[in-house]
């Protein structure tokens, strides 16, 4: 479904991703785990076209999308939920959700379906997004992405800045999404425990390179994961 080959990403002259390969099959749930600064966000921002890749290849359903503008990649079915969420603060929750479906009209009932996943949003439909709490904003960001009806949903650190209880709530929703087998899910997370409990398979990224990869079960039992992951070489 998504294939990243030998990707290099740099900010100015700081190269942060040094030749990463990632492959995700349709319907798979894949984790990209690693400590902060490991290069997870840079990898994902390059995948969705928000930051240009220095070199490499990115294919979505077999078609090269490298160098495409973000809006085209979004329309091609890959939707990214950044850690900063990027909501429209002065627009209502409902308008934010409807923007997710842009440029089509959302299928009837689709908004209700998404809101059903996050009941907290229900009572706040007419409220401005900027007035929501951090957890609600994260839910809205995921909800907005779902309204696009993506084939690949990419989530960047959905637990960032959330109290544990709220993070649990977000992850509960993600578990429901995982069981929807039409959706391919890619999840970047620094909380390796949470991530491995959700995904089928994961890549452990360290300093811009893939350090380990394997099924969730393999990685959970790997004594190297914690060490590698904490960045102690």
């Amino acid at each position, binding site marked *: 479904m998504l294939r990243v080959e030998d990707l290099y990403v740099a900010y100015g002259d700081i190269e942060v991703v040094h030749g990463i390969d990632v492959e995700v099959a349709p319907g798979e749930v894949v984790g990209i785990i690693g400590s902060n600064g490991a290069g997870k966000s840079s990898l994902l921002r390059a995948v*969705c*076209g*928000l930051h240009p890749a220095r070199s490499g290849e990115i294919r979505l359903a077999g078609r090269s999308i490298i160098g495409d*503008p*973000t*809006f085209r990649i*979004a*329309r091609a079915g890959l*939707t*990214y*939920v*950044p850690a900063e*969420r*990027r*909501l*429209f*603060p*002065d*627009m209502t929750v409902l*308008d934010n959700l*409807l*923007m*997710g479906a*842009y*440029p089509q*009209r959302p299928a009837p009932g689709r908004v209700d379906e998404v809101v059903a996943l996050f009941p907290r949003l229900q009572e706040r439909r007419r409220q*401005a997004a900027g007035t929501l709490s951090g957890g609600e904003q994260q839910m809205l960001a995921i909800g*907005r*992405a779902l309204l*696009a009806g993506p084939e690949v949903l990419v989530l960047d650190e959905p637990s960032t800045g959330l109290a544990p209880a709220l993070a649990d709530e977000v992850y509960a929703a993600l578990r429901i999404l995982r069981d929807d087998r039409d959706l391919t899910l890619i999840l970047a997370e620094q909380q390796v425990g949470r991530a491995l409990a959700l995904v089928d398979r994961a890549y452990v990224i360290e300093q811009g390179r893939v350090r380990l990869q394997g099924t969730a079960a393999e990685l959970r039992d790997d004594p190297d994961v914690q060490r590698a992951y904490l960045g102690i070489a």
Partner: protein
Amino acid sequence: MAIVLDGIVFGLQLSLLAVGLTLIYGLGGVLNLAHGQLVVVAGIAGAVTISAGAAIPVAVVLAVAAAAALAWLLDATLLRPVYRLTGERRVLLSLLVTLGVAFLLDGILITTHPFTALNLSVPGPAIDILGVRMRSGSVVASIIAVTALAAVLAFLRLSRFGRAVRSVIQDEEGAALCGVNLPLTRTVVFVLSGVMAGLFAITQGLISSVGATSGLDFTILALIVTVVGGLGRVSGALVAGLVLGIVHAVSSFYIGAFVTFVILLGVAMLTILIRPTGIFGGGAR
């Protein structure tokens, strides 16, 4: 009362001018100092068409089309290199480039059409509104302004594309992630602002006249309203236009025109110094 009504009419016109300016700024960080020249181009295009013997409606359509076309041309050519920059550098270059455009157009229009002016006198008697007699020209102008503003607001609030425009103003990256085509949105809004400038020219032609030398004045008026309403805030521009229109009318009547202009400029300066986000900036909704 008649004065206040005059002020409201003028205020509606100001809103028409300022909403266009503020939308472009909100969307692309471009402060178009040639906005007034769009009005002048529309005015002269209309006047020339009329003097060539065309019917008024044809002239009106041509006038608005001329402003829209010029706006499109600006966006598609000279502003391309500007959009490639980011942040302060984009704002600065846009200021200098559009200032250059303003003088370029002024020079050409003043030389080629020194005495052309758009005057659209509407036949018919004055009309009684709330016990006040209004010239029919003012009534028609108000109807045009109100209709245009309502249409723009409805477009921004209700249509999918309008929602996309608002989303870009609030968060460019978020909008791109939702699949919004940013360059296309910018172009459409630029043309829309041209249409509004053209309509302003029509309303101004109904009430007084539009000549080649008034470009800078229109730009400054739009700028004042935009600043007082909060740069990039549509609802702010709308309210500020009405309020300043009334202030303008009352103050011109009781104090005099030149002091009025100084007062308006002073209000704009004070707004920036005290509350740069605008006095009526309730949000981009």
